[in-house]
């Protein structure tokens, strides 16, 4: 297998010599289209379709081909499919990646084949370290987590209890919020971890209630976010003066509309809201609704849209040179307007620099939306800033 990759890598390196304008630009889109994370895959796929619909399928003289592959959320599949895409289909870039392990599994393939890997959704900070060809179009969790902590400190929150799901992203969300909050003079009364397959949040919420903090900071997967918030309200905690602070994942636009009025007033820090008031975003949200069959664009869709945008812009910058290393160089330092606001690619870390907004859940025209109240522009990954 390794020898194959090397051969292909060599072939790809020689590609610019033989490439001509008619050669299509192939993007291997590796996403979970089935299994428990299929909603992520579908959102990515729809957003990519929308991008091609809005911007055409030709860039710098090359026709863009999307090769969609379903990894069902299993890292072994991702790696196998990525290798196939290189060896057989001669892709020029990878994109997609719903979960951290899936992005990491592809990293060695991207390195050997020397083609860029755009990580759209997976949000663990360390991913970009795995290969010099990895770029991120989404977010890293420490970005919203530290902004949420800053916001809490600024608004007189002194004591918090953190509640996170007991898995990788949960630890990231917990560590970066709690460290920042403590460093700023706040007190973390308790740091609770909830089992991922947890049927009932009652005991954890009761514990938060009895600890009587100024606010509860929560990170749970978007699917159970609604149940979590409902039980928060059912327990009367919103009335006992405990504020609900979370990262944007909890109030994902994808489900927010169904979560019910319990969500009203929840404050989150996140990079994207479907209610972001720009023309660009409106076109994105309207277009996405059409392409996806009536769904509201969530942050996953926004990240995927930006990821394809990055590849288009990189190929324009190289004037049609599809060599992976040239593309990677072109990706560094890209800076452009996206549906979520102004974003750029950090040339040193290959990490996304994104605005993070403080949002409050409010009713807009009868439906729940994350309404942005404060903007923190150009937030870098705090995990990669050397002290």
């Amino acid at each position, binding site marked *: 297998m390794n020898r194959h990759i090397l051969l292909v890598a060599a072939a790809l390196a020689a590609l610019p010599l033989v490439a001509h304008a008619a050669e299509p630009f192939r993007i291997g889109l590796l996403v979970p289209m089935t299994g428990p994370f299929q909603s992520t895959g579908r959102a990515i796929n729809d957003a990519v379709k929308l991008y091609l619909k809005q911007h055409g399928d030709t860039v710098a003289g090359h026709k863009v081909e999307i090769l969609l592959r379903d990894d069902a959320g299993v890292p072994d599949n991702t790696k196998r499919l990525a290798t196939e895409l290189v060896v057989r289909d001669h892709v020029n870039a990878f994109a997609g990646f719903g979960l951290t392990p899936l992005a990491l599994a592809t990293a060695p393939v991207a390195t050997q084949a020397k083609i860029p890997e755009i990580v759209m959704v997976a949000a663990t900070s360390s991913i970009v370290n795995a290969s010099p060809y990895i770029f991120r179009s989404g977010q890293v969790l420490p970005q919203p987590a530290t902004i949420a902590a800053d916001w809490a400190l600024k608004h007189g929150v002194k004591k918090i209890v953190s509640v996170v799901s007991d898995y990788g992203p949960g630890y990231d969300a917990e560590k970066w919020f709690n460290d920042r909050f403590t460093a700023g003079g706040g007190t973390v009364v308790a740091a609770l971890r909830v089992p991922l397959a947890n*049927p009932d949040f009652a005991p954890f919420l009761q514990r938060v209630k009895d600890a009587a903090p100024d606010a509860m900071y929560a990170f749970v997967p978007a699917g159970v976010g609604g149940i979590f918030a409902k039980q928060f309200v059912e327990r009367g905690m919103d009335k006992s003066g405990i504020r609900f602070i979370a990262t944007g994942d909890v109030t994902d636009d994808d489900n927010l509309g169904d979560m019910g009025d319990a969500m009203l007033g929840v404050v989150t820090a996140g990079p994207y809201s479907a209610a972001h008031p720009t023309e660009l975003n409106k076109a994105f949200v309207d277009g996405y609704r059409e392409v996806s069959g009536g769904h509201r664009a969530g942050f996953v869709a926004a990240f995927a849209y930006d990821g394809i945008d990055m590849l288009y812009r990189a190929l324009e910058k190289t004037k049609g040179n599809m060599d992976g290393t040239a593309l990677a160089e072109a990706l560094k330092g890209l800076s452009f307007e996206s549906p979520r606001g102004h974003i750029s690619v950090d040339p040193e870390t290959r990490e996304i620099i994104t605005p993070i907004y403080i949002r409050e859940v409010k009713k807009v025209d009868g439906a729940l939306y994350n309404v942005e109240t404060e903007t923190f522009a150009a937030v870098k990954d705090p995990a990669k800033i050397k002290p």
Partner: protein
Amino acid sequence: MLTILVDGLAYGMLLFVLACGLSVTLGVMNFINLAHGAFAMAGGYVAVVLVNGYGVPFLLALPIAAIAAGLLGVVLEQTLYVHVYRRSHLDQVLFSIGLVFIAMAVVDYTQGSQQQFLHLPNFLKTRIDLGVVSLGTYRVLIICICGVLALALQAILTRTRFGARLRASVDDPVTARGLGINVNAIFAATFGVGSGLAGLGGALGAEILGLDPSFPLKFMVYFLIVVTAGGAAGMTGPFLAAILLGVADVAGKYYFPSVGAFIIYTLVIVLLVWRPNGLFAAASGR
């Protein structure tokens, strides 16, 4: 802490309603039905579609969900389950786990993979304040419904003619047939009731346990724990086991959150070492 006790009680009661059907099929009919959770999921989805989609009042949607799941149970029992009653336990396990995957795929295809949110009426979202303690109305409702059901089931099983026939059919189907008892009909009815109860549990539990296509797999362990720890004789065992596990789980997660997830399993191990056949084992070993 009274609130924790009530929360645990509600959770335990919910587990009981979800699992009691299984304790009938597994314990009484001696059939390993891992697809039990699929009927609970069916009930949950029926309730969600009715309440959210058609605006049916929640309290009316509950019995409809139970009946729908029960009918589904009877139909599947008559068409599929009858063929595997006499097969080995391995066949039964393979058959029913296959059914689980089919059910998950069907729900996924028709309803999508996302978490479903049941829109409860406002009067159930309030809290009852009793001075010393305040309780969620919805949890109190769960305790009431499930408590009544538990009593009714126990009475039916031990006091009525149907109960006597069911017990006879299980102990010795051949003799029971000889005495003119329609064993097949009794099994079908029992299976339907068990599935219906699961459906009710799924509808009641959507608010607390959540509802998505992975529901039958996620909660299979809990159902099996309740039945195993409770023992297979009558309703008392599973009932007490469900309450005990519910309260222990909630209290454990409250007082020792770092090890909370393990408490329920530890308790099961201790219980089974102490009483290998469950809290209330059948007098005659089967």
